């Protein structure tokens, strides 16, 4: 019977110190690994004879401005349909050099999702066949989802502070 504990055992057995930060928010096993080991860990889980995490559910980015040295996080969620179990893997990278290896060699659906994360956060996926912006305009020069940028359009003249008495 595959459950979170058996996954933890196997993964720690295979990778030792390279995986850490195990937790189970709402029953979903979550752990962290280094960016350099990400492809290996995901490949191990995908090709494992028993686990068979053959489906990449989601790949997203998160910006933690307070987490110095690991501000940007690339998080991917895998789902094993045969065992009906999910796992979430995070990889933190510093904002000055945000490089994460690409998962497109393992999952074709990671292609656009990594482009979206690059578009929003600036995380560069090394080895990606076509890493350019996907949802925003090509000539945009900043990464809008980072916390320091405002939501509203900067060129509005009808929502300026003067009108709101600030």
């Amino acid at each position, binding site marked *: 019977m595959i459950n979170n504990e058996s996954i933890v055992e196997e993964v720690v057995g295979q990778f030792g110190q390279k995986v850490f930060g195990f937790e189970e928010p709402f029953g979903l096993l979550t752990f962290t690994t280094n960016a350099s080991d990400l492809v290996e860990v995901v490949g191990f889980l995908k090709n494992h004879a028993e686990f068979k995490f053959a489906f990449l559910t989601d790949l997203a980015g998160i910006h933690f401005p307070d987490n110095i040295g690991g501000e940007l996080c690339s998080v991917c969620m895998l789902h094993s349909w045969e065992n009906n179990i999910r796992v979430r893997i995070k990889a933190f990278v510093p904002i000055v050099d945000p490089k994460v290896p690409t998962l497109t060699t393992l999952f074709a659906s990671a292609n656009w999702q990594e482009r979206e994360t690059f578009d929003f956060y600036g995380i560069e996926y090394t080895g990606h066949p076509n890493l350019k912006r996907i949802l925003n305009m090509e000539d945009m020069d900043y990464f809008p989802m980072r916390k320091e*940028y405002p939501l509203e359009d900067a060129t509005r003249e009808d*929502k300026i502070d003067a009108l709101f008495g600030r």
Partner: protein
Amino acid sequence: MSNIKIVDAPEGLEGSGFFATSLDKAIGLARSYSLWPLPFATSCCGIEFMATMGSNYDISRFGAERPSFSPRQADLLMVMGTIAKKMGPVLKQVYLQMAEPRWVIAVGACASSGGIFDSYSVLQGIDRVIPVDVYVPGCPPRPEQIIDGLMQVQHLAQNESLRRRNTEEYKALLESYKVL
């Protein structure tokens, strides 16, 4: 007797075998009851347009049954849905290709003013790139409201001067949008 309302004839001189009216009125009548829309449907308002084209709210009663996806053959540009900044140049190109007389309806809150999407990537109203004749607010507007907007354009088509493109006002408007 049926209760279907047919358009009244314009004021004119009638006799046996002839009807004389002013050219304005005749052409206004013809134009307004045969507007060919270009449904520029981008998001949710497009689905309400599909409901308007369906048999329950039937837009073909108003003569707008034939949607033309080619701007060269369309009279009325109905912009339905959110226009992002990436889409702005495309919208302008489509507008430029339309031949006079042309009217523009901004359907929905997003096309009128950006709607609920007050964000960095959404154009806050299409009147930032093209001149608009009628705004239909709503999120999404009911089909009855879209038809009301269409009727306002019909009113414009009937009552404006025939060659509105030659009026000073219109030329100044197009200048301000750098369209000419």
